[in-house]
Protein backbone atom coordinates (compact mmCIF):
# COMPACT_ATOMS: atom_id res chain seq x y z
CA UNK A 1 0.00 0.00 0.00
CA UNK A 2 2.78 2.36 0.93
CA UNK A 3 4.53 1.66 -2.35
CA UNK A 4 1.30 2.38 -4.20
CA UNK A 5 0.86 5.78 -2.57
CA UNK A 6 4.52 6.56 -3.04
CA UNK A 7 4.34 5.71 -6.72
CA UNK A 8 1.19 7.76 -7.24
CA UNK A 9 2.71 10.78 -5.51
CA UNK A 10 5.92 10.68 -7.49
CA UNK A 11 3.82 10.04 -10.61
CA UNK A 12 1.90 13.24 -9.90
CA UNK A 13 5.20 15.11 -9.48
CA UNK A 14 6.73 14.04 -12.80
CA UNK A 15 3.25 14.24 -14.29
CA UNK A 16 3.29 17.92 -13.38
CA UNK A 17 6.21 18.41 -15.76
CA UNK A 18 4.48 16.42 -18.49
CA UNK A 19 1.51 18.67 -17.82
CA UNK A 20 3.65 21.76 -18.42
CA UNK A 21 4.93 20.34 -21.69
CA UNK A 22 1.40 19.37 -22.66
CA UNK A 23 0.28 22.94 -21.90
CA UNK A 24 2.99 24.30 -24.18
CA UNK A 25 1.97 21.89 -26.93
CA UNK A 26 -1.69 22.87 -26.58
CA UNK A 27 -0.86 26.59 -26.72
CA UNK A 28 0.76 26.19 -30.13
CA UNK A 29 -1.74 23.61 -31.34
CA UNK A 30 -4.55 26.05 -30.62
CA UNK A 31 -2.85 28.74 -32.67
CA UNK A 32 -1.59 26.82 -35.70
CA UNK A 33 -3.24 23.37 -35.41
CA UNK A 34 0.05 21.50 -35.57
CA UNK A 35 2.06 19.62 -32.97
CA UNK A 36 5.40 21.28 -32.37
CA UNK A 37 7.97 18.47 -32.32
CA UNK A 38 10.67 20.97 -31.35
CA UNK A 39 8.86 22.03 -28.16
CA UNK A 40 11.08 19.82 -25.99
CA UNK A 41 14.31 21.03 -27.57
CA UNK A 42 13.21 24.64 -27.17
CA UNK A 43 12.60 23.92 -23.48
CA UNK A 44 15.99 22.18 -23.20
CA UNK A 45 17.71 25.15 -24.79
CA UNK A 46 15.95 27.52 -22.38
CA UNK A 47 17.16 25.39 -19.50
CA UNK A 48 20.74 25.68 -20.75
CA UNK A 49 20.29 29.44 -20.86
CA UNK A 50 19.19 29.31 -17.21
CA UNK A 51 22.19 27.10 -16.38
CA UNK A 52 24.52 29.60 -18.04
CA UNK A 53 23.00 32.49 -16.10
CA UNK A 54 23.40 30.54 -12.86
CA UNK A 55 27.00 29.73 -13.82
CA UNK A 56 27.60 33.44 -14.22
CA UNK A 57 26.42 33.93 -10.64
CA UNK A 58 22.91 35.21 -11.21
CA UNK A 59 20.65 34.31 -8.24
CA UNK A 60 18.21 31.45 -8.95
CA UNK A 61 14.89 33.27 -9.12
CA UNK A 62 16.33 36.15 -11.14
CA UNK A 63 17.78 33.61 -13.57
CA UNK A 64 14.38 31.89 -13.62
CA UNK A 65 12.54 35.09 -14.53
CA UNK A 66 15.16 36.12 -17.10
CA UNK A 67 15.02 32.69 -18.73
CA UNK A 68 11.24 32.77 -18.95
CA UNK A 69 11.36 36.26 -20.46
CA UNK A 70 14.08 35.34 -22.96
CA UNK A 71 12.20 32.19 -23.95
CA UNK A 72 9.02 34.19 -24.42
CA UNK A 73 10.84 36.58 -26.73
CA UNK A 74 12.55 33.67 -28.49
CA UNK A 75 9.22 31.96 -29.16
CA UNK A 76 7.87 35.15 -30.71
CA UNK A 77 10.97 35.52 -32.87
CA UNK A 78 10.68 31.93 -34.13
CA UNK A 79 7.07 32.50 -35.12
CA UNK A 80 7.72 35.83 -36.80
CA UNK A 81 10.84 34.66 -38.65
CA UNK A 82 9.82 31.16 -39.64
CA UNK A 83 6.22 30.14 -39.10
CA UNK A 84 4.57 33.33 -40.28
CA UNK A 85 5.85 32.48 -43.74
CA UNK A 86 4.40 28.98 -43.50
CA UNK A 87 0.93 30.09 -42.51
CA UNK A 88 -0.83 28.47 -45.45
CA UNK A 89 1.78 25.82 -46.18
CA UNK A 90 0.81 22.14 -46.12
CA UNK A 91 1.28 19.98 -43.02
CA UNK A 92 4.45 18.39 -44.34
CA UNK A 93 6.22 21.75 -44.60
CA UNK A 94 5.43 22.33 -40.94
CA UNK A 95 6.70 18.88 -40.00
CA UNK A 96 9.95 19.47 -41.84
CA UNK A 97 10.49 22.81 -40.14
CA UNK A 98 9.69 21.33 -36.73
CA UNK A 99 12.29 18.63 -37.32
CA UNK A 100 14.77 21.26 -38.49
CA UNK A 101 14.21 23.30 -35.34
CA UNK A 102 14.62 20.14 -33.29
CA UNK A 103 17.98 19.42 -34.90
CA UNK A 104 19.14 23.05 -34.72
CA UNK A 105 18.40 23.47 -31.02
CA UNK A 106 19.79 20.06 -30.15
CA UNK A 107 23.10 20.53 -31.94
CA UNK A 108 23.41 24.17 -30.98
CA UNK A 109 23.09 23.25 -27.30
CA UNK A 110 25.70 20.51 -27.77
CA UNK A 111 27.96 22.91 -29.64
CA UNK A 112 27.76 25.68 -27.04
CA UNK A 113 27.57 23.68 -23.83
CA UNK A 114 28.77 20.20 -24.98
CA UNK A 115 27.02 16.91 -24.34
CA UNK A 116 28.31 16.30 -20.82
CA UNK A 117 25.62 15.75 -18.22
CA UNK A 118 25.35 18.74 -15.90
CA UNK A 119 23.66 19.00 -12.51
CA UNK A 120 20.94 21.63 -12.26
CA UNK A 121 19.92 23.06 -8.87
CA UNK A 122 16.47 22.88 -7.36
CA UNK A 123 15.19 26.06 -5.72
CA UNK A 124 13.14 24.09 -3.21
CA UNK A 125 15.98 22.62 -1.14
CA UNK A 126 16.36 19.02 -0.08
CA UNK A 127 14.89 16.85 2.65
CA UNK A 128 11.57 15.12 2.90
CA UNK A 129 7.98 16.31 3.14
CA UNK A 130 4.89 14.61 4.55
CA UNK A 131 6.82 11.89 6.32
CA UNK A 132 9.09 11.07 3.40
CA UNK A 133 6.23 10.78 0.94
CA UNK A 134 7.71 13.34 -1.44
CA UNK A 135 10.73 15.58 -1.77
CA UNK A 136 10.42 19.38 -1.59
CA UNK A 137 11.34 19.51 -5.26
CA UNK A 138 8.49 17.20 -6.18
CA UNK A 139 6.07 19.35 -4.21
CA UNK A 140 7.57 22.41 -5.91
CA UNK A 141 7.00 20.97 -9.38
CA UNK A 142 3.33 20.36 -8.60
CA UNK A 143 2.82 23.84 -7.15
CA UNK A 144 4.60 25.53 -10.05
CA UNK A 145 2.49 23.65 -12.60
CA UNK A 146 -0.74 24.55 -10.86
CA UNK A 147 0.43 28.15 -10.66
CA UNK A 148 1.12 28.21 -14.41
CA UNK A 149 -2.33 26.79 -15.07
CA UNK A 150 -3.99 29.35 -12.78
CA UNK A 151 -2.14 32.21 -14.45
CA UNK A 152 -3.19 30.97 -17.88
CA UNK A 153 -6.79 30.65 -16.73
CA UNK A 154 -6.87 34.21 -15.41
CA UNK A 155 -5.15 35.49 -18.55
CA UNK A 156 -7.54 33.83 -20.99
CA UNK A 157 -10.66 34.38 -18.95
CA UNK A 158 -10.30 37.93 -17.71
CA UNK A 159 -8.02 39.93 -19.99
CA UNK A 160 -8.88 41.56 -23.25
CA UNK A 161 -5.84 40.18 -24.99
CA UNK A 162 -6.68 36.70 -23.70
CA UNK A 163 -10.12 37.03 -25.23
CA UNK A 164 -8.55 38.22 -28.48
CA UNK A 165 -6.26 35.16 -28.51
CA UNK A 166 -9.19 32.81 -27.94
CA UNK A 167 -11.12 34.50 -30.74
CA UNK A 168 -8.15 34.36 -33.11
CA UNK A 169 -7.70 30.64 -32.44
CA UNK A 170 -11.39 29.82 -32.78
CA UNK A 171 -12.19 31.82 -35.89
CA UNK A 172 -9.28 33.69 -37.52
CA UNK A 173 -11.34 35.24 -40.28
CA UNK A 174 -13.92 36.71 -37.92
CA UNK A 175 -11.12 37.80 -35.61
CA UNK A 176 -9.58 39.85 -38.42
CA UNK A 177 -12.98 41.38 -39.06
CA UNK A 178 -13.06 42.82 -35.56
CA UNK A 179 -9.56 44.21 -36.05
CA UNK A 180 -7.55 41.59 -34.15
CA UNK A 181 -4.02 41.14 -35.49
CA UNK A 182 -4.26 37.38 -35.77
CA UNK A 183 -0.62 36.95 -36.76
CA UNK A 184 0.54 38.61 -33.55
CA UNK A 185 -1.84 36.50 -31.50
CA UNK A 186 -0.19 33.40 -32.99
CA UNK A 187 3.23 34.84 -32.17
CA UNK A 188 2.06 35.50 -28.61
CA UNK A 189 0.92 31.88 -28.39
CA UNK A 190 4.41 30.78 -29.44
CA UNK A 191 5.98 33.07 -26.90
CA UNK A 192 3.79 31.72 -24.11
CA UNK A 193 4.39 28.11 -25.15
CA UNK A 194 8.10 28.72 -25.21
CA UNK A 195 7.97 30.35 -21.76
CA UNK A 196 5.94 27.47 -20.29
CA UNK A 197 8.41 25.02 -21.83
CA UNK A 198 11.25 26.90 -20.14
CA UNK A 199 9.49 26.50 -16.78
CA UNK A 200 9.05 22.78 -17.42
CA UNK A 201 12.70 22.42 -18.42
CA UNK A 202 13.99 24.20 -15.31
CA UNK A 203 11.72 22.12 -13.09
CA UNK A 204 12.64 18.73 -14.58
CA UNK A 205 16.37 19.41 -15.02
CA UNK A 206 17.21 18.73 -11.32
CA UNK A 207 15.55 15.30 -11.72
CA UNK A 208 16.90 14.11 -15.08
CA UNK A 209 20.08 16.24 -15.18
CA UNK A 210 20.85 18.73 -17.90
CA UNK A 211 22.02 17.54 -21.31
CA UNK A 212 20.89 18.20 -24.87
CA UNK A 213 18.73 15.08 -25.11
CA UNK A 214 17.03 15.44 -21.75
CA UNK A 215 13.64 16.50 -23.13
CA UNK A 216 13.20 13.89 -25.86
CA UNK A 217 11.27 11.37 -23.77
CA UNK A 218 9.60 14.06 -21.68
CA UNK A 219 8.17 15.62 -24.81
CA UNK A 220 6.72 12.25 -25.75
CA UNK A 221 5.01 12.03 -22.36
CA UNK A 222 3.86 15.60 -22.91
CA UNK A 223 2.32 14.62 -26.25
CA UNK A 224 0.60 11.70 -24.55
CA UNK A 225 -0.75 14.06 -21.89
CA UNK A 226 -1.94 16.60 -24.45
CA UNK A 227 -3.65 13.94 -26.56
CA UNK A 228 -5.23 12.34 -23.51
CA UNK A 229 -6.56 15.72 -22.33
CA UNK A 230 -7.81 16.71 -25.75
CA UNK A 231 -5.54 18.99 -27.74
CA UNK A 232 -7.77 22.02 -27.37
CA UNK A 233 -8.05 22.24 -23.60
CA UNK A 234 -5.41 23.64 -21.23
CA UNK A 235 -7.13 22.05 -18.23
CA UNK A 236 -7.30 18.79 -20.16
CA UNK A 237 -3.57 19.06 -20.87
CA UNK A 238 -2.79 19.31 -17.16
CA UNK A 239 -5.10 16.45 -16.21
CA UNK A 240 -3.71 14.39 -19.08
CA UNK A 241 -0.12 15.14 -18.09
CA UNK A 242 -0.73 14.17 -14.47
CA UNK A 243 -2.54 11.01 -15.54
CA UNK A 244 0.31 9.99 -17.83
CA UNK A 245 2.78 10.52 -14.97
CA UNK A 246 0.76 8.26 -12.68
CA UNK A 247 0.13 5.60 -15.36
CA UNK A 248 3.81 5.56 -16.27
CA UNK A 249 4.88 5.06 -12.66
CA UNK A 250 2.29 2.44 -11.80
CA UNK A 251 2.96 0.50 -14.99
CA UNK A 252 6.69 0.59 -14.26
CA UNK A 253 6.12 -0.75 -10.74
CA UNK A 254 3.30 -3.24 -11.09
CA UNK A 255 3.48 -4.68 -14.59
CA UNK A 256 6.49 -6.99 -14.41
CA UNK A 257 7.41 -6.82 -18.09
CA UNK A 258 7.38 -3.04 -18.19
CA UNK A 259 10.07 -2.01 -15.72
CA UNK A 260 12.06 1.18 -16.15
CA UNK A 261 13.28 0.28 -19.65
CA UNK A 262 9.83 -0.11 -21.14
CA UNK A 263 8.17 2.91 -19.55
CA UNK A 264 8.29 4.99 -22.69
CA UNK A 265 6.10 2.68 -24.80
CA UNK A 266 3.46 3.20 -22.11
CA UNK A 267 3.17 6.80 -23.27
CA UNK A 268 2.84 5.65 -26.87
CA UNK A 269 0.25 3.12 -25.79
CA UNK A 270 -1.74 5.92 -24.13
CA UNK A 271 -1.62 7.99 -27.33
CA UNK A 272 -2.81 5.11 -29.48
CA UNK A 273 -5.50 4.08 -27.01
CA UNK A 274 -6.90 7.61 -26.79
CA UNK A 275 -6.90 8.06 -30.55
CA UNK A 276 -8.76 4.79 -30.98
CA UNK A 277 -11.28 5.12 -28.17
CA UNK A 278 -11.86 8.83 -27.86
CA UNK A 279 -10.05 10.95 -30.45
CA UNK A 280 -11.16 14.26 -28.96
CA UNK A 281 -9.53 13.39 -25.62
CA UNK A 282 -10.97 13.77 -22.15
CA UNK A 283 -11.81 17.46 -22.37
CA UNK A 284 -11.57 18.11 -26.10
CA UNK A 285 -13.98 20.80 -27.11
CA UNK A 286 -17.36 19.89 -28.43
CA UNK A 287 -18.83 22.98 -30.00
CA UNK A 288 -22.54 23.38 -29.46
CA UNK A 289 -23.93 24.78 -32.61
CA UNK A 290 -27.32 25.36 -34.09
CA UNK A 291 -27.67 25.98 -37.76
Amino acid at each position, binding site marked *: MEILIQQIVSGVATGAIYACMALAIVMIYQAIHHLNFAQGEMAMFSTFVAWQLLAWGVPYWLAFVLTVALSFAGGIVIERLVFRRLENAPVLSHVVVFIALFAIFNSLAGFIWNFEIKPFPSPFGSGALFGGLMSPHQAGMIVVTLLVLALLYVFFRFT*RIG*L*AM*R*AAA*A*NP*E*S*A*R*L*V*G*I*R*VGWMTALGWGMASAIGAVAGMMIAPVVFLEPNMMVSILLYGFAGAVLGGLTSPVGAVIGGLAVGIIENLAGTYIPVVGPELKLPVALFVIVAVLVVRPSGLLG*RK*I*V*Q*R*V
Partner: protein
Amino acid sequence: MKPLLSVRGLEASYGDLKVLRGLDFTIAEGGVTALLGANGAGKTTTLRALCGMIPRSGEVEFDGRPISRARTEDIVRLGIAHVPEGRGTFFNLTVEENLELGAMSRPARREVADDVARIYGYFPRLKERRRQQAGTLSGGEQQMLAIGRALMLRPRLMLLDEPSFGLAPLVVEEVFRILAHVRETMKVSMLLVEQNANFALSLADHAYLLETGEIAVAGSAEEIRNDESIRNAYLGY
Protein backbone atom coordinates in the same frame (compact mmCIF):
# COMPACT_ATOMS: atom_id res chain seq x y z
CA MET B 1 -20.38 66.15 -51.21
CA LYS B 2 -17.35 63.92 -51.17
CA PRO B 3 -18.33 60.27 -50.95
CA LEU B 4 -17.36 58.23 -47.88
CA LEU B 5 -16.24 55.31 -49.99
CA SER B 6 -15.26 55.48 -53.62
CA VAL B 7 -14.36 52.48 -55.70
CA ARG B 8 -12.75 52.55 -59.13
CA GLY B 9 -11.99 49.55 -61.29
CA LEU B 10 -12.31 46.98 -58.51
CA GLU B 11 -11.36 43.52 -59.75
CA ALA B 12 -11.10 40.19 -57.98
CA SER B 13 -10.69 36.58 -59.07
CA TYR B 14 -10.97 33.13 -57.62
CA GLY B 15 -8.17 31.29 -59.37
CA ASP B 16 -8.64 31.81 -63.10
CA LEU B 17 -12.21 32.90 -62.71
CA LYS B 18 -12.61 36.66 -62.72
CA VAL B 19 -15.55 37.46 -60.45
CA LEU B 20 -15.39 41.25 -60.36
CA ARG B 21 -14.68 42.95 -63.68
CA GLY B 22 -13.91 46.51 -62.77
CA LEU B 23 -16.58 47.94 -60.49
CA ASP B 24 -17.03 51.68 -60.07
CA PHE B 25 -19.30 52.96 -57.36
CA THR B 26 -19.50 55.35 -54.45
CA ILE B 27 -21.21 55.40 -51.09
CA ALA B 28 -22.43 58.66 -49.63
CA GLU B 29 -21.79 59.54 -45.99
CA GLY B 30 -24.79 58.72 -43.84
CA GLY B 31 -26.62 56.86 -46.57
CA VAL B 32 -27.65 53.29 -47.14
CA THR B 33 -26.54 51.83 -50.43
CA ALA B 34 -27.92 48.54 -51.65
CA LEU B 35 -25.97 46.15 -53.82
CA LEU B 36 -28.43 43.82 -55.50
CA GLY B 37 -28.11 40.97 -57.92
CA ALA B 38 -28.61 37.29 -58.50
CA ASN B 39 -26.63 34.45 -56.99
CA GLY B 40 -23.07 34.50 -58.28
CA ALA B 41 -23.20 38.09 -59.48
CA GLY B 42 -20.29 38.97 -57.18
CA LYS B 43 -22.05 40.71 -54.28
CA THR B 44 -20.32 38.88 -51.48
CA THR B 45 -17.03 39.02 -53.36
CA THR B 46 -17.36 42.79 -53.56
CA LEU B 47 -17.65 43.06 -49.77
CA ARG B 48 -14.78 40.65 -49.24
CA ALA B 49 -12.63 42.59 -51.68
CA LEU B 50 -13.42 45.90 -49.95
CA CYS B 51 -12.32 44.39 -46.63
CA GLY B 52 -9.14 42.91 -48.01
CA MET B 53 -10.22 39.35 -47.27
CA ILE B 54 -9.31 38.28 -50.82
CA PRO B 55 -6.67 39.52 -53.29
CA ARG B 56 -8.04 42.40 -55.32
CA SER B 57 -6.92 45.19 -57.60
CA GLY B 58 -8.29 48.58 -58.41
CA GLU B 59 -8.62 51.68 -56.29
CA VAL B 60 -10.64 51.96 -53.12
CA GLU B 61 -10.68 55.13 -51.05
CA PHE B 62 -12.32 55.37 -47.66
CA ASP B 63 -12.70 58.91 -46.41
CA GLY B 64 -9.92 60.01 -48.76
CA ARG B 65 -7.53 57.24 -47.69
CA PRO B 66 -6.48 54.51 -50.10
CA ILE B 67 -7.33 51.10 -48.65
CA SER B 68 -6.98 48.87 -51.68
CA ARG B 69 -3.69 47.49 -50.42
CA ALA B 70 -4.38 47.57 -46.68
CA ARG B 71 -4.86 44.47 -44.55
CA THR B 72 -8.24 43.49 -43.16
CA GLU B 73 -7.31 44.37 -39.56
CA ASP B 74 -6.21 47.84 -40.58
CA ILE B 75 -9.27 48.45 -42.74
CA VAL B 76 -11.48 47.49 -39.82
CA ARG B 77 -9.58 49.85 -37.55
CA LEU B 78 -10.45 52.75 -39.88
CA GLY B 79 -14.11 52.17 -38.99
CA ILE B 80 -15.41 49.70 -41.54
CA ALA B 81 -17.37 46.90 -39.89
CA HIS B 82 -18.22 43.86 -41.95
CA VAL B 83 -21.15 41.64 -41.01
CA PRO B 84 -20.09 38.61 -43.03
CA GLU B 85 -22.04 35.96 -44.83
CA GLY B 86 -22.64 33.20 -42.29
CA ARG B 87 -22.46 35.90 -39.62
CA GLY B 88 -18.95 35.09 -38.38
CA THR B 89 -20.11 34.13 -34.91
CA PHE B 90 -17.52 32.94 -32.37
CA PHE B 91 -19.57 29.87 -31.49
CA ASN B 92 -17.72 28.75 -28.38
CA LEU B 93 -17.60 32.18 -26.77
CA THR B 94 -20.48 33.76 -24.91
CA VAL B 95 -22.81 36.32 -26.43
CA GLU B 96 -21.25 39.06 -24.33
CA GLU B 97 -17.71 38.04 -25.27
CA ASN B 98 -18.75 38.17 -28.93
CA LEU B 99 -19.90 41.74 -28.41
CA GLU B 100 -16.77 42.74 -26.50
CA LEU B 101 -14.69 41.40 -29.36
CA GLY B 102 -16.40 43.87 -31.66
CA ALA B 103 -14.72 46.68 -29.72
CA MET B 104 -11.35 44.94 -29.64
CA SER B 105 -9.62 47.44 -31.90
CA ARG B 106 -10.78 50.45 -29.89
CA PRO B 107 -8.46 51.49 -27.10
CA ALA B 108 -11.00 52.96 -24.67
CA ARG B 109 -12.01 50.18 -22.31
CA ARG B 110 -14.51 52.05 -20.24
CA GLU B 111 -16.82 52.91 -23.08
CA VAL B 112 -17.10 49.27 -23.99
CA ALA B 113 -19.50 48.51 -21.16
CA ASP B 114 -21.71 51.45 -22.19
CA ASP B 115 -21.71 50.26 -25.77
CA VAL B 116 -22.62 46.72 -24.76
CA ALA B 117 -25.54 48.17 -22.81
CA ARG B 118 -26.61 50.15 -25.86
CA ILE B 119 -26.49 47.07 -28.08
CA TYR B 120 -28.67 45.27 -25.51
CA GLY B 121 -31.04 48.21 -25.88
CA TYR B 122 -31.33 47.50 -29.59
CA PHE B 123 -31.50 43.74 -29.08
CA PRO B 124 -33.08 42.85 -25.73
CA ARG B 125 -33.00 39.18 -26.67
CA LEU B 126 -29.21 39.22 -26.66
CA LYS B 127 -29.26 40.54 -23.12
CA GLU B 128 -31.33 37.59 -21.96
CA ARG B 129 -28.75 35.27 -23.48
CA ARG B 130 -25.62 37.18 -22.58
CA ARG B 131 -23.93 34.30 -20.71
CA GLN B 132 -24.91 31.68 -23.26
CA GLN B 133 -22.56 30.18 -25.83
CA ALA B 134 -23.18 32.08 -29.04
CA GLY B 135 -23.40 28.81 -30.96
CA THR B 136 -26.66 28.00 -29.18
CA LEU B 137 -28.46 31.07 -30.56
CA SER B 138 -31.08 30.80 -33.28
CA GLY B 139 -30.30 32.12 -36.75
CA GLY B 140 -32.09 35.39 -36.14
CA GLU B 141 -30.35 35.92 -32.84
CA GLN B 142 -26.99 35.21 -34.44
CA GLN B 143 -27.73 37.80 -37.10
CA MET B 144 -28.58 40.30 -34.38
CA LEU B 145 -25.38 39.38 -32.58
CA ALA B 146 -23.37 39.90 -35.77
CA ILE B 147 -24.90 43.34 -36.28
CA GLY B 148 -24.35 44.15 -32.61
CA ARG B 149 -20.73 43.04 -32.82
CA ALA B 150 -20.21 45.26 -35.86
CA LEU B 151 -21.78 48.22 -34.08
CA MET B 152 -19.40 47.76 -31.16
CA LEU B 153 -16.68 49.10 -33.44
CA ARG B 154 -18.64 52.39 -33.64
CA PRO B 155 -18.17 52.08 -37.37
CA ARG B 156 -18.57 54.80 -39.94
CA LEU B 157 -19.44 52.27 -42.58
CA MET B 158 -21.14 48.94 -42.12
CA LEU B 159 -20.96 46.25 -44.78
CA LEU B 160 -23.91 43.90 -44.42
CA ASP B 161 -23.88 40.62 -46.29
CA GLU B 162 -27.40 39.24 -46.71
CA PRO B 163 -28.77 39.97 -43.25
CA SER B 164 -32.04 38.32 -44.32
CA PHE B 165 -30.41 35.05 -45.28
CA GLY B 166 -32.09 31.98 -43.81
CA LEU B 167 -34.38 33.95 -41.53
CA ALA B 168 -38.15 33.70 -41.19
CA PRO B 169 -40.03 36.65 -42.74
CA LEU B 170 -41.03 38.07 -39.36
CA VAL B 171 -37.44 37.96 -38.15
CA VAL B 172 -36.26 39.65 -41.36
CA GLU B 173 -38.72 42.45 -40.69
CA GLU B 174 -37.40 42.82 -37.18
CA VAL B 175 -33.78 42.92 -38.35
CA PHE B 176 -34.55 45.59 -40.95
CA ARG B 177 -36.55 47.62 -38.45
CA ILE B 178 -33.51 47.62 -36.18
CA LEU B 179 -31.18 48.53 -39.05
CA ALA B 180 -33.38 51.52 -39.85
CA HIS B 181 -33.31 52.52 -36.20
CA VAL B 182 -29.52 52.13 -36.03
CA ARG B 183 -29.17 54.27 -39.12
CA GLU B 184 -31.19 57.04 -37.50
CA THR B 185 -29.60 56.94 -34.08
CA MET B 186 -25.97 56.14 -34.84
CA LYS B 187 -25.51 57.87 -38.20
CA VAL B 188 -23.83 54.83 -39.68
CA SER B 189 -23.49 54.52 -43.42
CA MET B 190 -24.30 51.10 -44.80
CA LEU B 191 -23.54 49.02 -47.83
CA LEU B 192 -26.22 46.39 -47.94
CA VAL B 193 -25.88 43.25 -50.03
CA GLU B 194 -29.19 41.49 -50.47
CA GLN B 195 -31.08 38.99 -52.55
CA ASN B 196 -34.24 40.20 -50.93
CA ALA B 197 -34.52 43.33 -53.05
CA ASN B 198 -37.83 44.37 -51.54
CA PHE B 199 -36.45 44.80 -48.05
CA ALA B 200 -33.17 46.25 -49.24
CA LEU B 201 -34.81 48.92 -51.39
CA SER B 202 -37.12 49.93 -48.59
CA LEU B 203 -34.11 50.77 -46.44
CA ALA B 204 -31.70 52.09 -49.09
CA ASP B 205 -31.35 55.52 -50.63
CA HIS B 206 -29.28 54.33 -53.50
CA ALA B 207 -28.84 51.04 -55.25
CA TYR B 208 -26.53 49.27 -57.65
CA LEU B 209 -27.49 46.19 -59.62
CA LEU B 210 -24.67 43.76 -60.12
CA GLU B 211 -24.63 41.32 -63.01
CA THR B 212 -21.77 38.84 -63.54
CA GLY B 213 -19.21 41.07 -61.92
CA GLU B 214 -20.25 44.34 -63.49
CA ILE B 215 -22.59 47.10 -62.46
CA ALA B 216 -25.58 46.86 -64.75
CA VAL B 217 -27.81 49.56 -63.29
CA ALA B 218 -27.26 52.39 -60.84
CA GLY B 219 -29.83 54.74 -59.47
CA SER B 220 -31.77 55.93 -56.48
CA ALA B 221 -33.60 53.22 -54.60
CA GLU B 222 -36.91 54.76 -55.51
CA GLU B 223 -36.18 54.79 -59.24
CA ILE B 224 -35.20 51.18 -59.18
CA ARG B 225 -38.14 50.17 -57.06
CA ASN B 226 -40.56 51.87 -59.47
CA ASP B 227 -38.97 50.75 -62.69
CA GLU B 228 -40.90 47.71 -63.79
CA SER B 229 -38.46 46.64 -66.51
CA ILE B 230 -35.53 46.61 -64.08
CA ARG B 231 -37.61 44.71 -61.55
CA ASN B 232 -38.57 42.10 -64.09
CA ALA B 233 -35.11 41.77 -65.60
CA TYR B 234 -32.96 41.76 -62.50
CA LEU B 235 -34.98 41.40 -59.36
CA GLY B 236 -37.56 38.87 -60.43
CA TYR B 237 -40.67 40.30 -58.89
